[in-house]
């Protein structure tokens, strides 16, 4: 998988973007389902929300927020690369996008606990 020609920052950024997009896409229908429980069975939604209080689940949530943030900031970086007439220092930008994502999900984490 991690073959030699893939061991550089921009490829890793690409991979992270794809991975996060994929996980988000798979998670989303689930998320929608849970939310729509509010319509049909509010008590089950509450049950579910209580379940999310468990540390493991919390951590998974943080992970999701992280992936969402990664995907958003990574996506913004990509679109900046594509649409803004500037080109240099893509590696720095990719790293910054990742850093911001960490920051956001950390904030989320701290608020959540």
């Amino acid at each position, binding site marked *: 998988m991690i073959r030699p020609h893939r061991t550089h920052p921009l490829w890793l950024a690409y991979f992270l973007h794809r991975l996060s997009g994929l996980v988000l896409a798979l998670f989303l229908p689930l998320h929608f389902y849970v939310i729509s429980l509010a319509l049909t069975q509010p008590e089950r939604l509450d049950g579910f929300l209580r379940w999310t209080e468990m540390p493991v689940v919390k951590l998974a949530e943080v992970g999701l927020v992280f992936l969402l943030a990664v995907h*958003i900031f990574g996506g913004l970086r990509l679109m900046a690369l594509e649409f803004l007439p500037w080109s240099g220092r893509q590696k720095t930008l990719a790293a910054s996008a990742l850093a911001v994502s960490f920051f956001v999900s950390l904030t989320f984490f701290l608020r959540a606990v």
Partner: protein
Amino acid sequence: MLDARLYMLQRITALIMAPLALGHIAVMIYAIQGGLSAAEILSRTQGSLFWFAFYGLFVLAVSVHGAIGLRVIIYETFGMRALLLNGLSWIIGAIFLLTGMRAVLAVTLS
């Protein structure tokens, strides 16, 4: 497989979602403190046209964006072509849209 049209759609929906998604995260960060409950969520959103538009737009965009994204991944990973790929993309988009809209309706209009 992306031609200019799908690419544009994907980028436009991404641009639409960027502020919405960031907004959503912000709300989450704010709301999650002290735990979530159905009532709490509903009290914020129920009957609000704003939240309906907010999440409605989000769902619309994400359906298009996610369907195109998965389409690319499926094509590049499994080499699926033409009709099959198109069909699958539409189905994926529809699933996003239906489940998503149901959720939006659930929290805003009921």
